[in-house]
């Protein structure tokens, strides 16, 4: 009651505004799922066309780096979930700590991903940088093309997520994001982070575990 939530122009009350913000983000995430859905469709069609070759090509990927990265992203989602909970309770310090943790884990993911690309480059298996002759067969080349495009697109989304979290920390430190009044800002960014995580949860088996 004492806590007055800022209400923007078209909205009549804070509950309506919060519901609209959440719905807007969910719809955006639905469109993101369709974006990656196209890539998954390409991946599955190619796998149906060349089952043996793709299983063999998948063996060349660094399973453990992918596995560790999966664990890292899941942990970062936990940190974001804690941040959302803390934001609702208004504990600004705890929110900052959990968001910084999540962003650091996300950056860790990107660094490991970079190392993985570097290893593939030295194996001559990174498309665009390697000659076609290096690949066991054309279908292996095709698989690595899809691998590179989908992981790069995911890394791009993760980078946007890290920037989003960094922006939140910046606003929290400046004090321009009063909590719990504007907890929905943290919540909406958290939703995006979880989706980027979930996409990886699907990419990992589709690329690494099909061996």
């Amino acid at each position: 009651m004492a806590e007055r939530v800022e209400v923007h122009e078209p909205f009549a009350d804070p509950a309506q505004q919060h519901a609209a913000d959440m719905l807007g983000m969910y719809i955006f995430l639905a469109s993101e799922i369709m974006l990656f859905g196209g890539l998954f469709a390409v991946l599955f069609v190619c796998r149906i066309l060349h089952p043996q070759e793709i299983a063999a090509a998948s063996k060349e990927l660094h399973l453990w780096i992918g596995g560790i990265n999966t664990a890292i992203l899941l942990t970062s989602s936990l940190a974001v979930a804690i941040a959302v909970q803390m934001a609702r309770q208004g504990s600004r310090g705890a929110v900052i700590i959990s968001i910084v943790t999540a962003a650091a884990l996300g950056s860790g993911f990107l660094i490991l991903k970079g190392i993985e690309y570097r290893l593939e480059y030295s194996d001559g298996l990174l498309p665009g940088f390697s000659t076609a002759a290096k690949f066991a067969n054309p279908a292996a080349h095709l698989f690595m093309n899809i691998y590179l495009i989908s992981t790069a697109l995911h890394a791009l989304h993760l980078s946007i997520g890290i920037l989003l979290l960094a922006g939140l920390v910046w606003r929290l430190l400046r004090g321009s994001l009063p909590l719990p009044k504007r907890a929905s800002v943290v919540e909406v960014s958290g939703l995006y982070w979880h989706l980027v995580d979930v996409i990886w949860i699907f990419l990992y088996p589709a690329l690494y575990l099909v061996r």
Partner: protein
Amino acid sequence: MTSDQTIDAASDLENVGHSSIAETPTERISYLRAGHTLGSWLFTSDHKRIAILYFISVTLFFFVGGAAAALMRADLLTPQADLLSNEGYNRAFTLHGVIMVWFFLIPSIPNTFGNFLVPLMIGSRDLAFPRLNLLSWYIFMLGGLFTIYVLIAGGVDTGWTFYTPLSSMFANGNVVLAATAVFIVGFSSILTGLNFIVTIHKLRAPGMTWGRLPLFIWSLYATSAILVLATPILSVTLALIAAERLFGIGVFDPALGGDPLLYQHLFWFYSHPAVYIMVLPALGVISELVAAAARKPIFGYQFVAGSSIAIAAIGFLVWGHHMFVAGQSTYASAIFSFLSLAVAVPSAVKVYNWTATLYKGHISLDPPFLFAMSFIGLFVVGGLTGVILAMLAIDVHVHDTYFVVAHFHYIMVGGTVSAYFGALHYWWPKIIGRRYSLVWGRLTAGLIFLGFNLTFFPQFLLGYLGMPRRYHVYPPEFQVLHVLSTAGASILGVAYLLPFTYLFYSMRYGKPAGANPWEATGLEWSVPSPPPKHNFAERPIVTQAPYNYAIEYEEVDG
């Protein structure tokens, strides 16, 4: 001189005078006068002003795309290639397709009339995310600038469909730039769709239940769902083409065992629903125009609303009918053929219900109604030829001929563009606050109908006789029909330019429209014309069913 709000044939000449009419008090407090600087337009978050920005931009693209079509029609006057080179012709039809599809038809009704009317019709002060709405226009313009650059840089020759491996390996035009333009404009579509969905869910006025929503809102809701769910598939597909062309990272490359047909599946998974993005808003407009002209509640409201959703849903399952002759499995083709026929059912429901609405209605032959009537006629021809094309055996015969070209132009131009002009003539007094000359409006509606049929009906015959699309050199026996088509196109061109004379004239010389010049129902007619900046002085409360026209059955003759 007249305070009478009704418009009938007798008062035509009174609607527009020869002396300019000074600003009215309503206009002084309207959104049009809320700020006079360029910045007050370019940085506005008012949905009505953003609608005007979109209107200006899509009109511009409509005439650029139309100019490309004019070049093609002029070249097709003779069987030889005398105006354009082969390459030039390819570039002209590609540009025509890209601009008309992504920069006119898709944004046309949703982003102009949708932006303007969604908040007004549901009783809200604005869309849910006003600044996102403005961002969407800027993204649209960025995509548009890319397209203009492609045009200046020499164009692209793949056809608007960017089929692989032509686009990824062989085409020598600016494929990547054109794909980038379409990729960018896709985000504008997604943001608009998102904004509409959230607004319709969360910002309806008290009492505006789902069963009381205007049918235009229902159709925009279905359209928005497609925009949000289908457009990202196009984005990722175009990104894959760009990766293949720029970096050699190909996923459709047949040399690697990739499947070029997979590209067609992805492309049409977006582009067939995109056809419904283009036509569903038009169907919504026609429901509004028909009810207002008949002065009756729409017949079978639930069915008309539900058929929009059904068209959107089934529309996602029919993409394979573009690939009947592309080497797709026969079983898949049979299923796609059946599903494509199924789309005709909800479309026909709408046509039946409009006709039933008109039955025993007090019909006024105003320009919006004439556009609606020409829509219904042309949509039926386009729809029935669609049924013909959905049948496997016939499609194999006429695939990639002018029969297909004529079919989709009957839907897209005869349908959507007629509805666009109908909407313009219906809501112009609301948007600008002035009445225009009804005589000129009727003349335009008639000319468009005439010019359209003369342009595209011969193309059905051409296609059936075997004239393939995308060719500009043809056997001499086809010349008569091509000349007829070009003659029609020139009438159509004049008819499209006409409204811009008398509508602009009305801005200065037209009589003030009053809040409700058509005596129509709907919240948008309850506010002054042009509406004030914040739409509603106080939050409206809806207590009535939609299209609540008082029906008068008493006999008047005697």
